[in-house]
């Protein structure tokens, strides 16, 4: 019954759209198409890229083509690991903010997680705290998330209380955190070296796999899916989520309407921090070797993914589905460029151009057409 109604609704909407299109004159039809092309430029570029790489991989006679199951799983895996941070920074962008400290929070919690969960059996000499017995995993997860939450709450508090721009606040905390990471990796017997040799239980909880269709999918992909669901719930089904959109769209009006701008801002930054902290825990085990440069610039990819996914810098707009799409698209681009053997220098340039295009398309929505 319900499905039928929804289907009918969609059909009706499509019919009216088609009728609206039919009554346009030739000039307006051309305009409609050019608008359509510009609006979907990113997707069109990516579809073309995928087709090109697919043909290229068949021509080159690879046993696995670009669109093979294995390669798709590879993209899913990479997306899973970078989704946490994008989910966190997405909420801050909805509040018209940005977060430059995300990568450093991840780096700090990665180092802390790794140092607490180093193997005691083999390779005794490289252990950061030789006399430490690995605490329970859940405790380490909670510590990581608590550290993230603390920094996030601090960022949010400064933004809301002192009316500072998040760019400035997170620029400062980013520096502070960098100092903290550098100090932390000097602790114990580590002396600034990479922190590796993680316990099996730690590696297993992150990188252990479930076999689906003959391909191993690591646990962290499922954690990312769960995180996406929780964030979807928060954004769409809680007062906090609704207030977030309102504060992002117009903080003054939100205040008059009885929404606490302070509370909303602090909570959104805190949730973001929790996600960064958790992603640090995941990243440490996923990468295996951690140091002061872990997580550097990771926030830039996360912000780019949000923008590509339609989370607008003008505030009050964005969806979790968009962020997930943005993260996946960004990974498709990376993987495709690697398939083509594009050197990493060129990859940066291409990524930069794609982000510019995405933001330009986003801004077009708010410009009054003349």
């Amino acid at each position, binding site marked *: 019954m319900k499905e039928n109604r929804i289907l009918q609704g969609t059909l009706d909407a499509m019919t009216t759209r088609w009728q609206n299109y039919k009554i346009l004159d030739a000039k*307006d039809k051309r305009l409609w198409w050019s608008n359509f092309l510009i609006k979907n430029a990113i997707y069109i570029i990516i579809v073309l890229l995928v087709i090109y790489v697919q043909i290229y991989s068949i021509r080159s006679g690879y046993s696995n083509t670009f669109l093979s199951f294995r390669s798709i799983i590879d993209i899913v895996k990479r997306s899973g690991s970078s989704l946490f941070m994008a989910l966190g920074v997405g909420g801050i962008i909805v509040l018209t903010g940005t977060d430059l400290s995300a990568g450093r929070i991840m780096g700090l919690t990665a180092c802390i997680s790794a140092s607490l969960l180093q193997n005691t059996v083999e390779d005794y000499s490289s252990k950061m705290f030789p006399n430490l017995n690995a605490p329970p995993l859940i405790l380490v997860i909670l510590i990581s998330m608590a550290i993230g939450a603390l920094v996030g709450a601090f960022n949010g508090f400064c933004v809301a209380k002192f009316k500072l721009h998040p760019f400035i606040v997170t620029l400062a905390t980013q520096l502070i955190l960098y100092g903290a990471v550098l100090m932390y990796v000097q602790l114990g017997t580590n002396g600034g070296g990479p922190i590796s040799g993680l316990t099996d239980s730690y590696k297993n909880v992150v990188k252990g796999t479930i076999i689906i269709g003959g391909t191993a999918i690591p646990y962290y992909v499922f954690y990312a899916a769960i995180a996406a669901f929780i964030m979807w719930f928060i954004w769409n*089904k809680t*007062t906090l*989520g609704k207030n977030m959109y309102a504060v992002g769209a117009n903080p003054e*009006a939100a205040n*008059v309407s009885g929404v606490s701008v302070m509370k909303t801002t602090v909570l959104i930054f805190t949730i973001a921090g929790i996600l960064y902290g958790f992603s640090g825990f995941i990243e440490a085990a996923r990468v295996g070797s951690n140091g002061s440069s872990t997580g550097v610039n990771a926030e830039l990819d996360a912000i780019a993914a949000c923008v590509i996914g339609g989370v607008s810098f003008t505030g009050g707009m964005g969806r979790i589905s968009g962020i997930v799409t943005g993260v996946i698209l960004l990974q498709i681009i990376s993987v495709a460029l690697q398939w083509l053997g594009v050197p990493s220098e060129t990859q940066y340039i291409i990524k930069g151009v794609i982000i510019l295009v995405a933001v330009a398309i986003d801004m077009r929505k708010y410009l009054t057409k003349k």
Partner: protein
Amino acid sequence: MEEHLLQIKNISKTFPGVKALDHVSLTVRQGTIHSLMGENGAGKSTLMKCLFGIYAADSGEFILQGKKVNFTNARQAMENGVSMVHQELNQVHTRSVMENIWLGRFPIGPAGIDHRKMYKDTLAIFEDLGLSINPKAIISTLSVSQRQMVEIAKAVSHDSKIIVFDEPTSSLTDVEVEHLFRIIFSLRDRGCGIIYISHRMSEILQISDEVTVMRDGMHVATSPAAELTVDMIIARMVGREMDQVYPPKDNVPGEVVLKVEDLTALYQNIRNISFELRKGEILGIAGLVGAGRTEILENLFGLAKVKSGRIIKNGKVVKNKNSRYAKNNGFAMITEERRATGIFSVLNIRENTTIANMNKYKAKGLYISNRKMAKDTAWAIDALKIKTPDQNAKINNLSGGNQQKVILGRWLLTEPDILMLDEPTRGIDVGAKYEIYQLMINLAGQGKSIIMVSSELPELLGVCDRILVMSGGHLTGELDADKTNQEEIMALAAKYA
């Protein structure tokens, strides 16, 4: 001498699905004030945007002093002697008056920009217009009225022959309006053609030579102002006879609901304000801009800090520390600046309607139910007759009147006892105004108490039961709306001005 300064001939403009302008023609003669009237959406702004090249007209032509013109942007229009003083002034707030006037064409001397010449030229224009504004003052330190004068000076500096005024009086006090009219008259007398757009009937008849009325994108009629009455203009604008501008009042004030005692603000300039509000009463607050009218509402609603005084609601002292306390104590507030502090322009009708009331939509104490939100929004759309295609439409696409109704709906859903409205009909067309008045009277009839701040005295006299008058932060009078008149109110409003 060219008698016909500007001729607008058969301009048509179509937006997808809407015929915004349908063969509109009008002629502005030299040395006259030509008023353009019509409800919101009648096509006045679209016509002006076509003139200034912001939109390209589909057909028709503009003839300036016998020459066909086709401007592609506002700057080009200005250079050719066609200027506009906007309702919302587009100025660089952080720079000086003279820099704003000469922006884009600074006089260049041997050592860069010639500030001395700029200063002298600006001063000359100001003296010519009888303005006493310091050319070096920063724009953001000026009042709205002064900033408007700067815009006019800019138009004069371009030697404009046609000057368009778009709702210039909507945020001016009566004294400032007088001053503005003197300047408009002096522009007229030196041979300019003025196009004057306003919703205020009385001033239209006071200053115009000719009045053109538009409706639904079409030219309805042009007549000399001397032959017109307010009722005739309204009839042309709405396309029907409008018996009354104000609906009949049938609310009966009951016992005292709210008592304000010696309210003094911490930062703002309002001192020792005391008054009472009755159940089912509409209480007006009159006064000049800056007299402290909005500040009273802000202090009652917790948007500003109270220094001393008591607010007693139903016999109990209430402290509205912020808007959340106020909301929980049964207060509601609709602010003056709809765009800045009212609507969430990128959000849809449903989100805009339900935002003040989120806690009510929790299903099973767990998640926000879209169904409950949709139901309440449907109620608001129905009860307030909000014209919208559906709940998912962006509020930005609605007319000002309908946006105002959405905000009213937002607050009615919180079931307030005391509804505070700050300039509720500003920038809203006649038909929608009537509906807002009717809603207010109905709400009062249902036992809600309403405080209404307004700069339009006829509106206060027509809708309110009692009127408080503010002047310079003091309460200078409390009048029975049936037994007072505009002169008495103005005298009280000017007491400390």
